[in-house]
C-alpha cells in the first residue's frame, strides 16, 4: 500500500461512515485514527448520541468482526475472555472463546462493571492477547476496543482505574449536536433510516487492508523536532501545578502514533506539528489527574491541556 492508496481508503471509510453518523465528524475521525493507529477508544457522552451506532458502523464499513458486551455489575472476567468448558464426549476441557475475540469490540458502559472485570481487558488491550488457564491466545488483527461510558450517572458505577484509562489511545467526548444537525438526524429517521439495520452500508475496505494501513502509518517519517515537540507537550503535564498526575511516556507514544496516521491520511510521508496538535486533547485528557484545588476552582483537564499547548512553541527552523 502506498500513501495515496492510504489516503483514498481513509477518505472512503470516512465518507461511508458519514452517511450514517451525522454531524460527528470529529468522533468518526478519532475512531478511525485510533483503529489505524492500533489503539482503543473511550467514548464519553450522554445516552442517545450515537456512540454504539458509531462502533457498529465502523465494523460494517471496515468488514471487521463485531461483538458487543454490555457491562453490568455482575459481569465476570470469564464472560469477556471466555473459559474452558468440560466436554463430556471428549472428557477434556475445551476453550470457548468469549466475545473479546472480535476485531471490533464494543464495551458498552464499561464503568458499570467492577474493577476486576474491567481488568480483564487490560492484557487484551495492551498485548492483543488473552491468557486463560495459563494459555495465551492471540486476538484477531485488527483488534479495536471501543468503550463507552455515561458521564451523567455516578451511582452504581466504577470509575476506570488510571492503568486502565492509560490503555485507551483516545478519550473522545460526544456533545449535543447543534439544532441543524439534529434536524438532519431526525429527517433521516423520518425517511426510513433504521439504526439496527445497516445493510445499506457496504464494506469499503477489509481487515487486511486495515492491517496494511496500520503498517504504512507506522512507517511515516517523524522528524526529531516533532518528537521533541511531542515530548515537551507531555512533559508539561507533569510540571503543571494544576495537574496532580501527569501523562506517562505512553501518552507520548500515543501522540506520535496518532500524528502518523493523520499525516498518512493526508497523503504525506512525514509528520508536522499540525498533525500533532489536534490530537493532544484526545490523547491527554484521560491521562492527567487534576489537583483537587484546581477542581475546586472549576478548572477542567481540557482547559489545562489547552493552556499547555498554547505555552509550547511549535518547532521551526532558525533563520
Amino acid at each position, binding site marked *: 500500500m502506498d500513501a495515496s492508496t492510504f489516503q483514498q481508503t481513509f477518505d472512503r471509510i470516512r465518507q461511508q461512515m458519514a452517511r450514517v453518523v451525522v454531524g460527528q465528524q470529529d468522533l468518526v475521525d478519532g475512531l478511525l485514527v485510533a483503529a489505524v493507529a492500533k489503539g482503543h477508544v473511550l467514548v464519553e457522552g*450522554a445516552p442517545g448520541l450515537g456512540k454504539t451506532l458509531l462502533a457498529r458502523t465502523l465494523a460494517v464499513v471496515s468488514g471487521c468482526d463485531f461483538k458487543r458486551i454490555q457491562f453490568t455489575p455482575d459481569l465476570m472476567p470469564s464472560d469477556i475472555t471466555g473459559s474452558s468448558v468440560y466436554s463430556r464426549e471428549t472428557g477434556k476441557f475445551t476453550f470457548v472463546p468469549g466475545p473479546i475475540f472480535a476485531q471490533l469490540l464494543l464495551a458498552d458502559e464499561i464503568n458499570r462493571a467492577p474493577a476486576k472485570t474491567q481488568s480483564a481487558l487490560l492484557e487484551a488491550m495492551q498485548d492483543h492477547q488473552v491468557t486463560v488457564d495459563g494459555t495465551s491466545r492471540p486476538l484477531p488483527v485488527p483488534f479495536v476496543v471501543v468503550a463507552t461510558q455515561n*458521564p*451523567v*450517572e*455516578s451511582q452504581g458505577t466504577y470509575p476506570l482505574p488510571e492503568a486502565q484509562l492509560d490503555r485507551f489511545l483516545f478519550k473522545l*467526548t460526544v*456533545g*449535543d449536536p447543534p439544532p441543524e444537525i439534529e434536524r438532519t438526524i431526525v429527517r433521516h429517521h423520518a425517511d426510513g433510516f433504521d439504526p439496527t439495520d445497516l445493510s445499506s452500508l457496504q464494506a469499503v475496505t477489509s481487515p487486511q487492508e486495515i492491517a496494511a494501513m496500520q503498517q504504512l502509518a507506522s512507517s511515516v*517519517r517523524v*522528524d526529531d*523536532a*516533532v518528537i521533541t515537540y511531542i515530548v515537551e507537550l507531555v512533559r*508539561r503535564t507533569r*510540571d*503543571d*501545578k*494544576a495537574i496532580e498526575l501527569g501523562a506517562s511516556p505512553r501518552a507520548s507514544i500515543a501522540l506520535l502514533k496518532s500524528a502518523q496516521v493523520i499525516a498518512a491520511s493526508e497523503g*504525506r*510521508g*512525514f*509528520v*508536522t*506539528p*499540525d498533525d500533532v*496538535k489536534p490530537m493532544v486533547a484526545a490523547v491527554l485528557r484521560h491521562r492527567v489527574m487534576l*489537583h*483537587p*484545588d*484546581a*477542581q*475546586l*476552582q*472549576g*478548572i*477542567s483537564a*481540557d*482547559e*489545562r491541556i*489547552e*493552556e*499547555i*499547548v*498554547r*505555552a*509550547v*512553541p*511549535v*518547532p*521551526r*527552523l*532558525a*533563520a
Partner: protein
Amino acid sequence: MRRRALLLVVTIAVVAAAGAPAFAALDPTHAQADVDDAMAKKAYPFCHAPHEPLSSRAIDLCPHASAIPDCAGFAAACAKAAAAKPPSLPPWWMGWLSLPPFIGLVAQVTVWVVIAALVIAILVPIVRGLMRLRRQDEPGAKKDIEPARAPAPLELEEAMTLADEEQLLARAHQLTARGELQAALQLYLAASLRALDKRGAVRLAKDRTNGEYVRGCSDPSAKPALREIVREVDRVQFGGEDATQDAVGRAAHRAVAIVRALPVAMMLLVIMVCSLGCSGASVPKPRVAGDDPAGDELVRDVLTRQAITVGSLETALSSMPLPHPGERTAAVIVDMDRTVIDDETREHLAAWVEEGGVLVLAGFPPSWLKDYGAGRASSSGPHKLTARRLLARAVAPGSGEENDDEEDATEESAIYSRTEEHGEVISGDGLKLGGPSERIAWFDDGTTYAAVLTRGRGFVLGIVTNELLTNAGLARPGNAALLVAILASTSRTEMRFADADDGVSPPSTPIAAMLRAGLGMGLGHALVFTLVLFLAVGTRLSRPRPAAPPRRRAFAEHVEAVGALYARARSAPHALTAYARFADERLRARMPRGSSDIAAFLASRARMPLDACQRLWARAMQAKAGAPPIGDELAVLRELGAVYAAAMAQDR
C-alpha cells in the same frame, strides 16, 4: 439762550476740521474721478465679466447695472440670473422638504450611537485586560497553577515579531543568492506571515502551526500562496527533503506577492474617495479678484486713492485691544450682512467704542448692539440720498476728545460741512436710532440713511445698508462722493475692514477651532479611519475567548462548579463556616451524654493528638460567613474534612 447754555455745559470738541489732514484725505470732490480712474486702469471684472452664477448679494445689486457706464457684462449676468429662477415646486413636494431635517437628526443620532458602540467595544477589552492583569498580580492560588514558563523563543519567531517584512524578504533574497536555501525558505514564510499579521489576516503566536496559519488566514487572496509556501517549508523541515532552487524560487514569488499586495493601498484609496464623497466637495469655478459685484475691492481702491490707509482687520473683533485715552485708533468697518458677530464680540465692541474706538456699522441695523436701539425705517419716494461731512461733533466734558477746530458751526452743537453730496441707492430702508445722534446722510423724504452715535470717548457711524461698500454700489455715478462724505465723518486716516469670520470670538478649544474651520467632517472621517485601522490591525492582539463549558454536567462537575463559584466569589470563609456548622451538628448528635468537648470527642474518634484537634476545631469555629478571607480557609476545610471523615468512619 438755550444754545449758549448748552454750549456752556457741553464742550465743543472739534475732532476734525476742513484744513486738518484727515478731512483733507477724504475729499468727495474727486471721489468720482478716483472711481473712474480705478475702473479704467484696473478693469475690474465685476462689470464686464462677473463671476457667475451671481451670488444673492450680487443679484440684489442688479438695479445698479444699468446705471453704471460700460457694465454690460454685469447687466447680462443679472438678466441671466433673473431668467434662471427656480421652478415652483408642486404642493406634494413641499411635504417631502420637511424630511431632510428629520433624516439629518436620525443620521446624527445613528452616528453618535455607532461612535458610542465603537468606544465601548474598544474600552471593554481594555478594562477587562486591566482587570485580568490586576487579578494575576494578586497573590493567590491562581498563580500556583500556572504552567511552567515557556522556553525562550526561537530565532525565527523573533525575526517574525521584530523585523519588517521587507527586511525579511531582502534577507531571504540574500540567503538564496548565497545558496542557503533552507533558511531562505523559512524567511520567505516569515515575511509572508509578518505581512499578513500586519494586515490582521493572521495572528502570530509561538504555538501556532503553519497549517493553523493557513487555515486561519482571513485574506482569501493570500491563502493559496501561503498554503504553497507552507507546503514547501514543511516538506523541507519535517519531510527531510532538500530545498531546491525551484522550490525556493516559487516560494519567493509567492512571498513577494503576499508582502507587496495592494489591499491596504486599496483600502486607503477607498477611504479617501469616501471622504471626498461624503463631504460633497465639488470643484468650484476659480474666482478672480474684483469679479464679484458685491465685493469691496473698488471701495478699498478708492479709499486708498483718497490717502486712507486701508487694510483688513488682522485680529478678531473681540480681540481688538481697548484704546488708551487720547489714542487715535483706526476706524473699523463692519459689513453686518457679511460679518456675523456673536454676543461676546458685541460686548467687546461696546467697550471698545466706549474707550475711544471708531466703529462703522453697515447694513442690517437690528443686528447692531442692542443699546444703540437701531432699527429700520422705510422711506418713501425715490431712493436719492444726500450726505454731508460731519466736521465736528458734540462730546461730553472730560471725555478726552480733542478740540481741533470750530469751523462752519451749524444750528446744532455738531459741525457739518456746507457742501452736500448726492447719490442713489436701491434699498429704501432708513435708519432709526434709539438715542441722540448726528445725521450724516438722508433720503429726500428726510429719513436718515447714516448717522453718528456717540458712546463714551468713541462713536459709531451707522449706515443702514452696505450698498455703498460694494463694487457695484460704489461704481454708480455719484455714490463715491456720497460714501467719501459719509466716511469722512470718522475723521480717521486709517481704516480696517472686518472679514466674514472676524465677528466670532476665537475658539476656546482646538476641537472647537477645527469645527469652526469647517473641519468637522474631516475630523469625523479621521476618527472613523482611526477606528477602522484599530479594528483592522488591533484585532490581531485580541485574545481568543475560552470555549464554552459543556452543557451537561455530572454530579462531580456540579460540585466543581459550586467550588469554582465559591472561589470566584472569594467565599472560602463561608464554605468553611458552613462545613464547620455541619460537622458540629453531626458530632453533637453522636456525642455521649454529659460530654460537651467536641474537639476532644473528635480527637478520640479520629485518633489524632488532642491539641492539634483543638486548634483545628477552634479555627473552624472562628470562621464567619462574610468575613474577609485569611488565606488558610481551604487548607483548614480540607483538614477538617479528613478528620471528620476519619471520625465518622468509626460508625460504619
